[in-house]
């Protein structure tokens, strides 16, 4: 029996637990990555979103066996990037964060949107964030922040 090997926020990692364990639970409970939130466990809220090989995925919908040989980035890892700084400043400028529960998923979804399309229209931003539910902000400030980040961070994505 071999361990599940993957890169977690840049570090080579081995998981020896069960292949059927849920990535969301493992990230929170085994690796103490508490930015990854559990909102629904049904793929519907996006609070658990992470990047797997630079693609936005809801970690509640992933079993550990599926991440063998993959690279996972959570907010804890993304925080160290220049793209994070731009997104974070833009969110602050528009007071786009209230309780904060949705924000790790929202930021990673914003980054994933910009990776695919560095200069998205408002509609494209809304589409990119459409799987992330926010109960507080009404979304408009978040959408404006992503638009601003796309301008300020020109060349980063």
């Amino acid at each position, binding site marked *: 029996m071999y361990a599940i090997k993957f890169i977690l926020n840049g570090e080579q990692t081995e998981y020896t637990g069960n292949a059927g364990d849920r990535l969301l639970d493992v990230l929170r409970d085994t690796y103490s990555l508490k930015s990854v939130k559990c909102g629904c466990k049904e793929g519907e809220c996006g609070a658990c979103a992470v990047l797997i090989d630079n693609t936005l995925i809801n970690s509640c919908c*992933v079993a550990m066996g599926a991440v063998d040989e993959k690279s996972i980035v959570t907010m804890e890892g993304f925080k160290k990037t220049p793209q994070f700084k731009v997104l974070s400043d833009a969110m602050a400028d528009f007071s786009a964060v209230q309780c904060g529960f949705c924000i790790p998923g929202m930021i990673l979804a914003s980054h994933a949107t910009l990776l695919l399309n560095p200069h998205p229209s408002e509609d494209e931003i809304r589409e990119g964030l459409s799987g992330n539910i926010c109960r507080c902000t009404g979304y408009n400030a978040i959408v404006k922040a992503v638009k601003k980040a796309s301008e300020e961070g020109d060349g980063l994505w």
Partner: protein
Amino acid sequence: MVGGYAPATLEKALRIRAEETVVPYAGGTDLMVQNRKNVEYLFLNKIAELKQIKVDKDYIHIGALVTFTQAINDDKVPQIMKDAISKIAAPAIRNAGTFGGNLGNGSDKADSVLIEFAVDAKVRLMSLKGERIVNVEDFCITRRKIDLKDDELIVEVLLPNKPYKNYIYQKVGGRNSLAISHVAFAGLFEEKDGKIQEFSAAFIADAGRFLRFKDIEQTLIGKSKKEAKNLKDKVIKAYSDKIVLTAGRVSAEYRKTVSLNLLRDFLTWFGV
């Protein structure tokens, strides 16, 4: 790994499928929500040969592990399919969800499968014993019941290779990014020398299965638009008699009314 298998080739996967009791795992977006206990998964996501989209003279081949996002970004996939799969949930789900999983889940509301019904697609299945190619309407028997043997895997979907010029796709659901179809409709229409050459109408209506009635379709084939127009009310009545719905998540009467409205719009759109 403990509690699962992650083979890198289809051949190895088929061997494990034959020898062990395993649940095939593609994108996980249905399986992880079902949260089955005490199962061993057969992870298919390392098998490159299942992730290909290819075209030959007769078919567009979509590998079982092709994700919706991959297909949306591939020029070989016809627009009618793209229209349907780009309305599935939100990016994170489309990044993970696959064609094989949409079929394998056995849901009667699977959006890519509706298009497969409308275009007479086939499903290629494999086991160590060999392969079977079945019509999608025979593969999807009823809700949660598919024609998949315990030692088989879905390998690819075959869409007839043709232009799909005149079609309509409509999905009626709740909130966009979560919307599992309440009702969805896919219709194909082709005319040649003033006669209807192709007419196909497939529905998702929470009916326990996908709905398509080839006998009614046949009554319009070979007719001119004018002749078809005269038959229009009769045709819609024939659908109305066949679409028998019982209670579901939204009222049966609503689903039937919407289904028939979409059909009428489709006919009108193409001048019938």
